């Protein structure tokens, strides 16, 4: 309970978001990696994994975000919250842009040296996009938490 007193409702929500990102990405990667190794990576195999991920996210959100709202006082966003949010969106933007550049580089590299690393199929590109989204979201949450803690 002391943990709840030390952090504001907003910070706890960001922590919860961060943990959700980690859970979802760990589950996704742990399920997708074997498919990738066994060369069974296709849309049919990916669909149940994505579906399970969505179910996990919904259950987690109901329990954790619900508990945070029950045990802590909800506060209206003020200018400082918006300011830190903007800062974190900037980091998130840079991370996603970096990721997209990496994909472009991979596609271009594949087009030139196909025999070396193989073709980038659509599911593989989708997985890379998923990882970029997770990294970008994690970066956003960490930036917000860093700024909140730094100013206390």
């Amino acid at each position, binding site marked *: 309970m002391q943990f709840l007193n030390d952090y504001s409702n907003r910070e706890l929500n960001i922590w919860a978001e961060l943990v959700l990102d980690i859970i979802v990405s760990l589950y996704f990667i742990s399920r997708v990696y074997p498919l990738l190794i066994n060369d069974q990576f296709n849309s049919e195999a990916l669909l149940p994994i994505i579906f399970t991920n969505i179910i996990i996210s919904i259950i987690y959100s109901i329990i954790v975000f619900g508990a945070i709202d029950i045990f802590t006082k909800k506060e209206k966003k003020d*200018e*400082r919250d918006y300011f830190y949010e903007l800062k974190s969106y900037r980091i998130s933007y840079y991370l996603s842009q970096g990721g997209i550049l990496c994909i472009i580089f991979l596609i271009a590299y594949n087009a030139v040296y196909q025999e070396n690393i193989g073709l980038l199929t659509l599911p593989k590109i989708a997985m890379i996009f998923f990882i970029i989204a997770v990294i970008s979201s994690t970066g956003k949450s960490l930036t917000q938490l860093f700024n909140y803690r730094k*100013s*206390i």
Partner: protein
Amino acid sequence: MKEQRIKNQIRRLRFEANEMTQAELAEKASVTRQTIIALEAQKYSPSLELAFRIAKVFDVPLEKAFQYN
């Protein structure tokens, strides 16, 4: 860490205003208590509008509540 150039007298003004709590000031200035904590720790520079709102809560001119170094 980058030093804030806008200093404030919020803690002193709160003390002088019958020891107004951070929560009370936050409510009157329409911000969160965490923002008041950050302001008092001189770790956050408020917007001009918030600075005016805080000065108005204490009924003092802006320059009595905030100084630019």
